[in-house]
């Protein structure tokens, strides 16, 4: 049983140019999937199709093995969540607490339990001390963590991150990533689909999808896909840092198949 299964999905904004072109893949429950592809390859469009912000032109979407139709679209929408790139444009409430509560209000969550729930999720993204703050007084990383809390408070089964850290400074990136890592570890049931430009981050995921011009060109384990430099270059992507170093090392006679920096360092030590 898959959490999400996409079959022959296609979509076009103008009726002729296929922005999503016959894409099929599946995502298992509780996994972390990275979607790579250069700008304009259709990643955001794919995300919007999955959460039901756009209507597909063709193909099928299965959620928990049930095909999504117009009738049960709402079910899918209540169980998926999407975090966008720009921290400012998804901050709806006037303060942190109002924003986290926004989704709860829409779901008619009882008023007397809201406060506790908001505090709990603010805490889960390390923002409990900032409940009364306004967005203008928060950093980008803090706003993205609030967006995470606002999404997770609705208990989604699939969380999609559409370049959620790409507009942040290095510090913001790392705080948000740490929170995402922790959420993934604590929440074994939650499936995360992360659209990213960061190939090193993709290396740590369970599965990688590479999009190019609306087509799915690669799908598989990062260890298998991300070593193929020429294939990556074809879709204008870089190799992960570790693999690049390994390639350079090979030229001076040090062989390593390490997947992490730590492992690589050990291999280098061992070769001495």
């Amino acid at each position, binding site marked *: 049983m898959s959490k999400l299964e996409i079959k022959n999905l296609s979509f076009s904004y103008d009726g002729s140019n296929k922005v999503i072109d016959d894409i099929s893949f599946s995502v298992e429950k509780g996994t972390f999937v990275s979607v790579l592809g250069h700008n304009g390859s259709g990643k955001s469009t794919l995300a919007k199709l999955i959460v039901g*912000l756009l209507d597909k032109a063709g193909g099928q979407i299965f959620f928990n093995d049930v095909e999504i139709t117009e009738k049960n679209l709402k079910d899918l929408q209540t169980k998926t969540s*999407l975090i966008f790139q720009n921290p400012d*444009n998804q901050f709806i409430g006037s303060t942190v607490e109002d924003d986290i509560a*926004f989704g*709860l*209000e*829409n779901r008619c969550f009882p008023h007397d339990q809201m406060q506790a729930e908001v505090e709990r999720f603010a805490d889960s993204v390390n923002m409990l001390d900032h409940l009364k703050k306004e967005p203008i007084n928060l950093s980008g990383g803090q706003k993205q963590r609030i*967006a995470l809390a606002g999404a997770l408070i609705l208990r989604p089964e699939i969380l999609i991150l559409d370049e959620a850290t790409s507009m942040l400074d290095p510090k913001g990136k790392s705080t948000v990533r740490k929170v995402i890592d922790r959420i993934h570890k604590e929440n074994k049931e939650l499936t995360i689909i992360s659209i990213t430009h960061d190939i090193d981050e993709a290396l740590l995921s369970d599965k990688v999808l590479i999009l190019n011009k609306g087509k799915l060109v690669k799908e598989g384990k990062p260890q298998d896909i991300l070593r193929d430099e020429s294939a990556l270059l074809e879709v204008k992507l870089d190799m992960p840092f570790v693999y690049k170093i390994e390639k350079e090392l090979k030229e001076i006679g040090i062989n390593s198949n390490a997947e992490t920096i730590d492992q690589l360092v050990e291999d280098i030590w061992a070769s001495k």
Partner: protein
Amino acid sequence: MSSMTFGRYSFRNTFIHNLDARNKIFLMLLFMVGIFFQFNMWSTALIMSGVYIVILLALMLISRVSLWSLIKSLGGLWMLVIFLMIIYIFVPTNNPKLPVAFTIGSLEVHWDAFCQAGYIVMRLILMISLTMILTSTTKPMDMTYAFEWYMTPLKPIRFPVHEIAMTLSIALRFIPTLLDETERIMKAQASRGVDFNHGGIFKRFGAIIALIIPLFVSALERSEELANAMIVRGYDPRAKRTRYRLLRFSWRDIIAFLFIGGIFAGIIVMFVFDRKNPIDIVEFFFHVKGF
């Protein structure tokens, strides 16, 4: 945009911050209506103005709104003051109560003109200050909730009360963001040689266009993304929703109500008294003649 910081909500735990927004709006309007009662005698007007200013200062003190930032943001009013002065000087006063200040040709300018202009400006400043106290002590969200509450009677006739309130609260939420953006675009355009501060009217117009267009484009993009973010989090304007924030009438509101209500009653009493026997209070109490 430091001049815009006054009037922006800032979180503090004061008596006025904790008032119910509905009550605050009502009391502010009541006080404003009171301020606009016109008195016959300048001395009464003067005394009442003093009373209003004392009350305003007290309100600012209680709400911990800084006087300095108020003065800074009122700085732009001097044009209006001069404008009003000119109008009142050249429009003859009917039944003046004060002596002639000077004459221009055959036109006699009475001190009344200055009093009238000063009186108007003072009331304007009071109104602006009161509004600013309201906005800097009330969360935008609470303000829109209050607005929605006052408009509830219009719901049965399908007036989009909730939609307007939501639009309003988002607009308020985005003002600082867009101000920052304006500043950023101005800097970016300035670095490309656009001059916002010099040049003739056409050049300035061009500079404004160079600001407005990117600002507009970015605002449109933002609104699209924001709409998507709201839908993803389950927002449906027509659906029933619960509320995180509830407006509550507390003992503070009763005190505030009695206080401003009392002042309003006092103004009415003074007004009736002033109409019925227009005596010069200053002369009557302090035996100072000629005002």
